[in-house]
Every structure is written in structure tokens, then in C-alpha cells.
């Protein structure tokens, strides 16, 4: 039996440096499962990549092309907020799961409305909340009178954290100033001049692609301390800072996994895949970089969803997309299970339910020391008291717009 | 007669415009319409150019030029290269705005002419360096000349419905007559860019004729033609002039043509007027001979 996993990737275009290790990681883990375990309970995983170049229209085409392959696509990781928007509606009709680990629509946490979306492990609201928590900690719990700037990619992706930050600003009494950067953001001098003028205490950096190095360079050139910058996970990969080296020293990024850690899964990957010359990355040194690990996690969640669904619908059987979705909804990765999978050091336990499609939302801060990332904080969890009402409000609006009747869980 | 019949049987020479319905906008000259070919009565002054001066930066293209054109006459403008002949026409039909002077057309005086106004008043024009619409067929080029008379609006045209279609066909009929008249039937649907130079000049004339003008300004219509073709062209011009009473202003370097077909001639040199009169007067004017004609003529 075979189970089909579609892989939407971008290995070309603006965001390729992030997309390549990410895509490699996704594929590598599937290869590992096939090579090491012979598939999921004997069901071989087959997969096919489709290049989106981060373009929504192409992404839709890929989605259409792959959704019906085999017995149907097990679930899509669109790798792009734009593509997620575009396929979310279609997923309702096609009955296929969309998993968006660490991106996508923040309100899609609500499984009663967003039956097919799975923003596993955290959304942009998680990220924004955790960043503020870390800042709070540094500022000894008091942000009154402080000024925090959000420098963001002027697109839906960059705007996602705004509603939450506004709530936080009201609650914690800091001033939020916002600086949109028009994509692609190759030139940010005016933004950083304004920052120099307004002297915010911290900068939250919601950037992507070339905007990241350009922003860090400009921060350096305008003398803004990198220690006061907090970047979202897509702006906190190795390639974002490697070439800047010491210039980015002190730059903070948030992550939903223990990025600096290597675990058993890396060793297995080396042993079962790379040593046999079947690795996806052109260069084995890519294994272990942040985006690659993130890719593996995504595939792991996909595989575990399949595994969970097989428990219910029959071990060793090929599943329909709808059945896999059930698996996503009933993930329960305990610490023991994670350890067994080789991810024990890398991530925190997750448990999803019909109403909660995110599972958990642990995140932590890492800092670049000029040569590598170091973990500088403990795990944080987002403040549910703040996020929950927001999720409810926004998903209700979506349901109304789309004429969706929320299901009861 | 059906449309088809008209298309297939070109009108006899001289029949051009003969079946003209009294078109809107008073296209037919009210007075002086010839009842008989070859007996034109030259009428009053229709176009009066007064003290025109035109400069481009340091270049004085025209200096204080005055002359007039009478209804139904053939008026030639001659002069050496760069004398300002084309610029003169450009002033008349509003392509250039002279710095000084005024132009009176049918009793109305204008300081500046605006191309559209001029066209509406019934002045058409051909160009020295072909100014055809390169991407369009011969037929379409000439059809553009009918533009001023086409009235149906955008929506009707989009639907091509009733009046729009009828209008299109009515104008097409007129244009077909011009095509027949100029003997370019075979090239009807050819893009003009592909035509040889001489034929392009004919299409240019056709486009101007399609406007049913009262005054026709021709800028070297016969350049690049051999004698036979020039003869044809002269016939076209004279026929239009005879049959239809159209006033002609003509720039031409072929003295044979100018002397034979024009009623009066203006001579320009370096932007100044050096002679004005009948062909014979001009031919014997010493200034003109020195500046332009040379001794060989």
C-alpha cells in the first residue's frame, strides 16, 4: 500500500534560500520513514514536489494538480501565507487538510470553523505574544512608557501579528509604532532613519527574504542595537545572518523548536539516508540548519497524523485525505513518543483536538552570536487569555462571511 | 443600385461624389458648385494668411508671410528646400502655432488653429514624409478620414447594432468610391506599410479626400513618381478640383506640374515670400529664378 504526500515547495525565486532547506527537510524525513521503517505500518510514503516559487497562482495550480494523486493528498503544507489563503476555501470542498506550522491564518486555530486548517505548534499571534513576554522579562515586568516598533513586510503575512500586538500594547501599556516595508524590501533606509529618530526600545522584525539582511544591515548602519531586535522565525534562519556574521551579533529570533539542538532523528537521517547517498540536500552540512529541521518537523507531524489515522481506520491501509485529517485532529505526541521519534530534544509535546487545531504553542528565543544561534530563553507559552478571544472573534467573522456553520465539537 | 453593384462597377470618371447626398455639415460648397466640368469659377478668398512668423529656437522658419487662397483655385507653394513650405501648411492646420500673425478662414480669424477645429472646418491635408497609419490596411486608413462624420457612440459600436452597422456600411461605400477613383482596389486590405512609396502617397491622398474637404493641402504629393504616375495624380487633383470645387493648396518641386495645373503660385525662400502670382508671372520673376528655378528652366 502507498500513501501520497504532496510537497509544495519553493526552491526558486525570492525566498529560495529559506525554501530550499525547508523543502529538503520535508522530503528527507519522508525518505527516512521509508528507509528506516519501511513506511508507516508498512504503508510506503510516496511524494511529489511541486514548485510554487512562492506565487499564489502557481501554488493553486500545484494544489489542484496534486490533491487527487494516489488516493488523494494526505495534507498540504503550502509553505506560504498567500497560498494558504488561496487554498483554504478550496479545502472545504476538496476535504483535504492544510497544515501550516507557524504561519497561515492565526484564527484557523479554531477547528470548529476551520475544519481543514491546522496551524500546528503556533501562529503569528503566538510569536508576537512570546516576544513581548521575553521583552517583559528583560524589562522586569514593566513595559509602561516603553516604545516597541513593528517593522513588517507589508503583506498579509507581515500584518498578522498586528491585532494581537495592539491588544498587548493596551494591556501592558507600551506604545506600539508600526513601520511597513514594501516588499521586497531591498531598500529600508527611511524605515531605519525613522527608527533612529523615534528611538523605540525594541524592534519586532516581521520580515522575509531579502528584507532580513537588508534590515539587519540598515540597523547596523544606523546604529540600532541588534540585541533589541526580535525577528519572527522566517527571519531567523542561518542563511539570514550567516553572511552578516558579526554585524548581526545579538540579533534575536523566535523559534517553535529547539533549533540549536540535534537529536536522534538527525543521526538516523545521516545513517539511513545520507550515508546511502539518498539525501535530498546537495550538501549534508545542511542537515541541522534551522529551516531543514523545521521541514522535518512538518513531515513528522504529517506522518504522525497518518499514523494516528491508521490506528482508527486500519493499520497498513491507504487512507483518504479525510481520514488523514482525522489524524491531524487527534495528534497526541507525548514526551515519550517524541523521544522515540527522535524529536525529544527538539520540540515540546503536542495534542490537538477537534476544536483546537494548533495543539500547543510553545516558543523560545534564540540569539545569534556572530557564528551560531544560542538559546537564550526558556520555553514560553502564549497568553491564552489574550489570544483565545481574538481567535473566537476572527473565526466567527470568517464563518459569517463564508456562510459556514461552525460544527460543534 | 445595390452596394455590391457599386463596388463591382467603379463609377465612371467624373462620377465621384456625384451621388453625394447633401451630407451633414455642409460639405458641398453652396456657391459655385460646378454644373459643368472644366468651368470652375474661382470664388472669393476662402483662406487668408496674414503676417505669419514662425520660429524654432534660433531658426526662423517663416518670416512675415501673407498670402491668400481663393475658393476653387489651385494654389501652389514653391521654394527651395527648407524654405518653410511644409511649415506653412503646418501652421494652417494647427500642427505648428506661429508666434505672430493670424489666419482667416471663411471670414473667421484665428490666432492659433487647433487641428481638430481645422479638420471640422473642412481642411484636409497630405504629408510630405508619409504620415499614414502603418499598422492599418488601406481601407482602414481611408476610413479614418470619415471619422469626423461617424456619429454612433461607443456602446452601439460595441454591439454593432442597427444604426452603427448601417453607418459603417454607408461610409464604407463612400470610401470604396475613393478607392476606385484612385485605382487602388487591389490593395484594399494590404497593410499600408507594405505598399511601395508611390502607392502610399495615393492612399494619403485618399485619406484626405475621404474627409470631403473644402480645402485640400497637398505636401509634395508627387514626389517619387514617374511621369505617368504624376499624370495620374494630376488628374486626380484636377478632378477633385473641377468636380467638387475643392480648393487645393499644393507644394510641389516639379515645375512642370506646378506651372501646368496651378492658378496662382506663392514662392518662399528662407522663410520669406519672394514671389506671388500666376505661373507665368512667377516664371519670369527674377528673384524666383535666382533663388529657385535656376537657369535650366
Amino acid at each position, binding site marked *: 500500500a502507498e500513501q501520497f504526500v504532496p510537497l509544495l515547495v519553493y*526552491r526558486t525565486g525570492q525566498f529560495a534560500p529559506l525554501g530550499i532547506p525547508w523543502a529538503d527537510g520535508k522530503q528527507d524525513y519522508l525518505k527516512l520513514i521509508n528507509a528506516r521503517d519501511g513506511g508507516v505500518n508498512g504503508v510506503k510514503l510516496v511524494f511529489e514536489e511541486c514548485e510554487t516559487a512562492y506565487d499564489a497562482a502557481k501554488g493553486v*495550480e500545484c494544489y489542484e494538480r496534486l490533491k487527487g494523486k494516489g488516493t488523494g493528498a494526505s495534507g498540504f503544507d503550502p509553505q506560504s501565507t498567500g497560498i494558504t489563503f488561496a487554498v483554504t476555501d478550496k479545502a472545504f470542498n476538496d476535504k483535504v487538510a492544510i497544515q501550516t506550522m507557524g504561519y497561515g491564518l492565526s484564527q484557523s486555530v479554531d477547528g470548529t470553523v476551520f475544519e481543514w486548517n491546522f496551524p500546528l505548534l503556533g501562529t503569528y499571534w503566538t510569536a508576537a505574544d512570546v516576544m513581548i513576554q521575553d521583552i517583559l522579562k528583560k524589562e522586569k515586568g514593566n513595559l509602561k512608557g516603553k516604545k516597541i516598533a513593528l517593522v513588517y513586510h507589508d*503583506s498579509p503575512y507581515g500584518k498578522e501579528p498586528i491585532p494581537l500586538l495592539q491588544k498587548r500594547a493596551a494591556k501592558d501599556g507600551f506604545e506600539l509604532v508600526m513601520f511597513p516595508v514594501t516588499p521586497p524590501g531591498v531598500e529600508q533606509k527611511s524605515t531605519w532613519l525613522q527608527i533612529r529618530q523615534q528611538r523605540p526600545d525594541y524592534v519586532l522584525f516581521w520580515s522575509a527574504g531579502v528584507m532580513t539582511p537588508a534590515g539587519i544591515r540598515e540597523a547596523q548602519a544606523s546604529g540600532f542595537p541588534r540585541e533589541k531586535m526580535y525577528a519572527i522565525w522566517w527571519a531567523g534562519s542561518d542563511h539570514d545572518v550567516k553572511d552578516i556574521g558579526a554585524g548581526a551579533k545579538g540579533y534575536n529570533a523566535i523559534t517553535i523548536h529547539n533549533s540549536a539542538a540535534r537529536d536522534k532523528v538527525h543521526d538516523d537521517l545521516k545513517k539511513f539516508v545520507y550515508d546511502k547517498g539518498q539525501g535530498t540536500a546537495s550538501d549534508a552540512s545542511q542537515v541541522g540548519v534551522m529551516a531543514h529541521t523545521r521541514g522535518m518537523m512538518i513531515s513528522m507531524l504529517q506522518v504522525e497524523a497518518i499514523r494516528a489515522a491508521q490506528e482508527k481506520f486500519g493499520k497498513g491501509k491507504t487512507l483518504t485525505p479525510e481520514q488523514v485529517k482525522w489524524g491531524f485532529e487527534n495528534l497526541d505526541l507525548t514526551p515519550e513518543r517524541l523521544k522515540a521519534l527522535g524529536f525529544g530534544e527538539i520540540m515540546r509535546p503536542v495534542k490537538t483536538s477537534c476544536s483546537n487545531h494548533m495543539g500547543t504553542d510553545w516558543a523560545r528565543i534564540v540569539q545569534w552570536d556572530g557564528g551560531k544561534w544560542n538559546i537564550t530563553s526558556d520555553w514560553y507559552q502564549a497568553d491564552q487569555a489574550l489570544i483565545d478571544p481574538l481567535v473566537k472573534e476572527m473565526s466567527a467573522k470568517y464563518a459569517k462571511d463564508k456562510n459556514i456553520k461552525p460544527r460543534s465539537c | 443600385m445595390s452596394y455590391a453593384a457599386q463596388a463591382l462597377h467603379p463609377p465612371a470618371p467624373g462620377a465621384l461624389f456625384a451621388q453625394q447626398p447633401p451630407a451633414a455639415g455642409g460639405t458641398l460648397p453652396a456657391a459655385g458648385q460646378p454644373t459643368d466640368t472644366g468651368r470652375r469659377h474661382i470664388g472669393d478668398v476662402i483662406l487668408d494668411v496674414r503676417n505669419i512668423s514662425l520660429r524654432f529656437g534660433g531658426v526662423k522658419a517663416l518670416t512675415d508671410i501673407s498670402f491668400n487662397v481663393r475658393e476653387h483655385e489651385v494654389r501652389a507653394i514653391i521654394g527651395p528646400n527648407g524654405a518653410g513650405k511644409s511649415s506653412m501648411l503646418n501652421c494652417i492646420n494647427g500642427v505648428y502655432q506661429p508666434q505672430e500673425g493670424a489666419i482667416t478662414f471663411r471670414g473667421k480669424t484665428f490666432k492659433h488653429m487647433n487641428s481638430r477645429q481645422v*479638420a471640422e472646418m473642412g481642411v484636409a491635408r497630405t504629408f510630405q514624409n508619409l*504620415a499614414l497609419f502603418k499598422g*492599418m490596411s488601406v481601407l482602414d486608413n481611408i476610413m*479614418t478620414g470619415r471619422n469626423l462624420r461617424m456619429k454612433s457612440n461607443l456602446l452601439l459600436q460595441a454591439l454593432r447594432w442597427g444604426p*452603427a452597422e448601417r453607418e459603417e456600411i454607408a461610409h464604407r461605400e463612400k470610401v470604396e468610391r475613393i478607392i476606385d477613383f484612385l485605382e487602388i482596389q487591389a490593395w484594399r486590405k494590404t497593410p499600408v506599410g507594405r505598399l511601395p512609396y508611390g502607392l502610399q502617397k495615393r492612399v494619403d491622398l485618399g485619406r484626405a479626400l475621404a474627409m470631403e474637404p473644402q480645402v485640400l493641402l497637398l505636401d509634395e504629393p508627387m514626389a517619387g513618381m514617374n511621369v505617368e504616375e504624376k499624370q495620374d495624380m494630376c488628374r486626380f487633383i484636377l478632378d477633385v478640383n473641377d468636380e467638387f470645387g475643392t480648393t487645393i493648396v499644393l507644394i510641389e518641386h516639379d515645375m512642370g506640374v506646378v506651372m501646368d495645373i496651378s492658378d496662382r503660385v506663392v514662392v518662399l525662400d528662407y522663410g520669406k515670400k519672394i514671389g506671388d502670382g500666376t505661373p507665368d508671372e512667377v516664371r519670369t520673376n527674377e528673384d524666383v529664378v535666382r533663388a529657385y528655378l535656376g537657369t535650366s528652366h
Partner: protein
Amino acid sequence: MLYRENGQFKQSYHADLQIFPVLQDRVAIQLLLVLAFVAVPFVASDYAFRAILIPFLILSLAAMGLNILVGYCGQISLGTGAFMAIGAYAAYNLQVRIDGMPLLVALIGGGLCATVFGVLFGIPSLRIRGLYLAVATLAAQFFTDWFTNRVPWVTNNSSSGSVSVRELSLFGMAVETPAQKYLLCLSIVVVFGLLCKNLVRGAIGRQWMAIRDMDVAAAVIGIRPVYAKLSAFAVSSFVVGVAGALWGFVHLGSWEPAAFSIDRSFQLLFMVIIGGLGSISGAFFGAAFIVLLPLLLNYVPHWLGLPLSTATASHLEHMIFGALIVFFLIVEPHGLARLWLTAREKLRLWPFPH
């Protein structure tokens, strides 16, 4: 020998003025329409509808609109994406803000808003020409990008700035399945195609072309550049706006401003040029070339079973695509539509070479 027009005499100007004066063409186009309306809905797969046919139709429509401006009126526009965006967002707002707004009215309304916007940004064309005009249209593009991103009202206060439409229905019938959506697009494209064709072969079309080919001469024969240019902007942006609304409503369903970014503008311009400036059928050829060819190229390694990595395949695809563009231009610089005409002309003479 099959393609002969000998013996087809036109007995009236009316006959000569038909869109397809040659009998064979008429038959061919009728067959094509029957095929598109009747046969395709039965045979095409979901994937073909949603990923190929619908985008192809909508982009053809947009290209057709753009062709009126660029190909017929000679005004280069790099702001097509913006006009599409205006169409899409306007239609969206009509739909969310007015209860029970019929789909067609929303689409047309989107087109009308785009018209106003197009005329506004067309005003500089009265003074600025050629490539320089691109600045005005680029200003429209970037302004719209910014506007749709930054003014919350436009997106009905959606926090992320992306919008999504309700399900569609036409005269009380739900337009749900891909086949229905396809038929909706096809009908609109056919109707607009006919209207555009009528315009470009009528008086206004001649005015546009005259302005394009030589504006001074056009003015001299009484064509008002103001009217000609602005009407081209208006008609073009109307069609493009409707296409934009369709793109948002029918193809994407929900979208973010990036769906109508400058890339889209460039893409459409290229469709128009490669398809053939100043030709309605060129829009279809161009859309097919620019949209479908990459898809096709994408499949080639699969079919041949070449073990290429996604990235390599994608780079090769780019290279081949680029090379093909150059190749076709060398064969026929006036676009695929002209290539087609030349082929037909040859067919007419076939089997004799001249």
C-alpha cells in the same frame, strides 16, 4: 487546397464586414465554440478546469483588455495588475456591502470602478508618451498595491488584508463546480471577445490605431487624442477590471494584494506582445503561451522520466521558456497571431510555394 476562398464572392459590404469573411474560418470558429461549450465540460478533469482552463480564460480576457490599450491604442501600460485589483476589490466590496448583490452586477460594477480609475491614470497619457508613460501606469500599480494593503476599508477591515468571497450564484443557481465556473468564464470571455472585436473593427478602433500609428496625422484628420486615448483607457480598464473580478471571485476565491502585483502586470503585457499586438486572437495565443507553456514544460521531465530535482527542472524550464520566447520572436516579431495568419496565407497557396 482545403483552405481556399475562391468562389466565395462577397455580395455586399455587410458580408465583407463580417468578423470571419472566409467560410472555412467561420466553420472552424463555430466548431471551436461548440467544442468549448459542449464537449469540454464533459471531458475535462477538475484539475484541467481549475488549474488550466479557468486561469487561461480569465487571463485571456485581461490580455484582451490590455491589448486594446497597448496593441490598438499604443499606450504602454504596466499597471494592468492594478486595474485588475481595482476590479476585484470593487466587486468584493459591492458584494459584501450590499446584500443580495447579483454576481454579474458585482462583476460589471468592478469593471466600472476600474474604468474610472483607468481614465484617471490615463490622463497623463495626453502629455507623456511611449515608455515614459509606463511611469504613470507604474504609479497606478504601486499606488494600488499600497492602497489595497493599507486602507482597511478596502478589505472590509480584514486584519491581515486578505479577503475572501462568499459562494457564487448566478440567477439563483449556485456556481460551484469547476465546470460551472468554467462555463461562466467562457461565456463572459466570448461575449467580451465579440464586443471588443466589434469595437476594434469599428470607427473607434480606427481612431485608436490612428493615434497609435501617428498621432499628429490623426489629429490633423480630426481625431481628438483626448477622446481616443481616454476611451481606450476606459474600455481597456473595464475589461481588465472584469477580468480582475473574475480572477478574484472565480479563480482564487480569496486573495491577498500580491495576487495583483506588478508581476501580474508584466505577465499580461508579455502575453499581449507575444500573442500579437493589435489582435484580439493574439490575447488568447499569448495567454496560452505564457500560462500554459510553463505548465507543459513542467510536465516534460515527468513524461520523459528524467530524474531532475525540482529546482533544476524549474531552472531549465525558465531557460527553455526564455529561449522559446526569443525563438518565436525571431520567427515572427509581430506575435503568434501574425504567425498564425502567415501560416494561413501559406495554406491558402498550398501546395504552391507562392
